[in-house]
């Protein structure tokens, strides 16, 4: 089984120009004063083609998010290069939209203003920005909640606003860091379906980080598995050949879904066990 999985890992042939994101030999480390440098991610390469939906799955604390932050330009890698559409990334990634796990809306702005500001800062006239924001809020199903402040919305509704806020700028690359993590299971599936529907309209390149393997398979074209940190690296790369358009909830009943799940899980399981196993050993050693 493992060998079969490895066989598919061989990188699909990429035409250089069609690569939206190219992470080449990226290493990420953190320097904490008085301690040895912590190497979160060992030199790792990951390529995302234009229009490709890639999910990164790994155990908690494996450095999935740091990989995403390096792509966003929020974090400078210790080594390697980040290329966006063939250009080396310097500073913040202006072509990417980022959907955070935590609430990132400005609490002092209404849902409408939170979405409209994304266009206004680019110099668009307020009236136009508001009109577009209204349209986007309608698309995420919040037409009736435009004047609400974030605290007056549910967790799922806040995520919808954040989604509209990200998509309204029409970024070429979508970076998502466990965006639906804090939501309940049903809401997650509904949000997943909504995301797929919006994504299908113009197929941006997506890097979607999650610890939920089912979510990863249901949404993506390719599932990338990361090993437990420190020195995390990519240990598996599986194409997901489920037909689109998909419904994030119904697809889970598909027999092929189960096959893929079983195959990928067998590899991920070992890594998850390693994470907790290490923790256990650490506890025993320290006690």
């Amino acid at each position, binding site marked *: 089984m493992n060998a079969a999985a490895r066989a598919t890992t061989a990188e699909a042939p990429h035409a250089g120009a069609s690569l939206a994101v190219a992470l080449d030999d990226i290493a990420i480390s953190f320097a904490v004063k008085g301690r040895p440098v912590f190497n979160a991610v060992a030199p790792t390469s990951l390529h995302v083609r234009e229009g490709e939906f890639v999910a990164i799955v790994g155990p908690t604390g494996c450095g999935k998010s740091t990989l995403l932050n390096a792509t966003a330009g*929020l974090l400078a890698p210790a080594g390697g290069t980040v290329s966006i559409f063939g250009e080396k990334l310097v500073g913040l990634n202006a072509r990417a939209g980022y959907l955070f796990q935590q609430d990132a809306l400005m609490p002092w702005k209404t849902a409408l203003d939170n979405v409209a500001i994304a266009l206004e800062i680019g110099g668009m006239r307020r009236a136009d920005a508001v009109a577009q924001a209204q349209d986007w809020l309608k698309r995420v199903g919040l037409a009736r909640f435009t004047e609400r402040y974030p605290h007056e919305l549910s967790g799922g509704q806040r995520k919808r606003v954040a989604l509209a806020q990200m998509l309204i700028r029409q970024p070429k690359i979508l970076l998502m860091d466990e965006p639906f993590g804090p939501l309940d299971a049903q809401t997650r599936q509904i949000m997943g379906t909504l995301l797929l529907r919006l994504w299908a309209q113009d197929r941006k390149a997506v890097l979607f980080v999650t610890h939920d393997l089912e979510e990863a398979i249901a949404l993506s074209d390719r599932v990338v598995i990361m090993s437990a940190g420190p020195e995390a690296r990519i240990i598996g790369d599986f194409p997901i050949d489920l037909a689109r358009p998909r419904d994030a909830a119904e697809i889970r009943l598909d027999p092929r879904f189960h096959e893929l799940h079983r195959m990928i899980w067998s590899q991920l399981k070992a890594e998850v066990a390693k994470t907790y196993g290490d923790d256990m050993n650490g506890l025993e050693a320290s006690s």
Partner: protein
Amino acid sequence: MKLHPAKLLFLQILVAVAALALWQIGATVPIGGDFLLPEFFFSKPGDVLSRVVELFVTGTIWKHLWITLTETVLAFIIGSVGGVVIGFWFARKPVVAAVFDPYVKMVNALPRVVLAPIFMLWLGLGIWSKVALGVTLVFFIVFFNVYQGVKEVSPVVLANARMMGMNERQLFRNVYWPSAMSWMFSSLHTAVGFALVGAVVGEYLGSAAGLGYLIHQAEGVFDVTGVFAGMFILAAFVLVIDWFVTRVEKRLLVWRPQAASEQN
């Protein structure tokens, strides 16, 4: 356990009636040949009330109220503007903050009342010495809150705004400023209260007008009725200002969750 509003109001009024009745009885009914609350020291509720009415009817009070209000408002505005500017500056320039830190702590530790004589020496007996005293009180409250507000901006909100493409100016307008303002407005009651304290204490220590002056004058001639009347008017004045501040606060902080659901 929530009281019916009418019942609550009734109980609240009952407290006032009981307290006034005790005061009246203590001042007018001798117990064992002695008054529990001798009129010379405690006056009588009726006398205080008629003095209050008299002050308003003759119109003498308006001038004093106006002076105190002016001092309070000026102290609040000047102190707030100073606090906001310095607060922002320190929060965005950690080096400056680090250099001035011990001095800020030192000045803030000083009981502000001791500055009153200095201000009187510098600025005279007019309103400005009172304004200065109020400013020293208001400034630190606003300063600490704005400093905190800028420092405590959620890193996620900030990262999100940057990813959206905001430049420094836009970040200031859309993220830092609202965050700092929310902290400042949450201390609005305290700041306005301190502005008033500065004004009244300043007046009390030396002035020719204002509520503090009124109380001080009455005290100087053992006019206890006058002192109580002044205190009563002062309390009512504070309540009116506080009501006004609450309205402003509600208007400005509509986006805030109600206190109980503060998390997230």
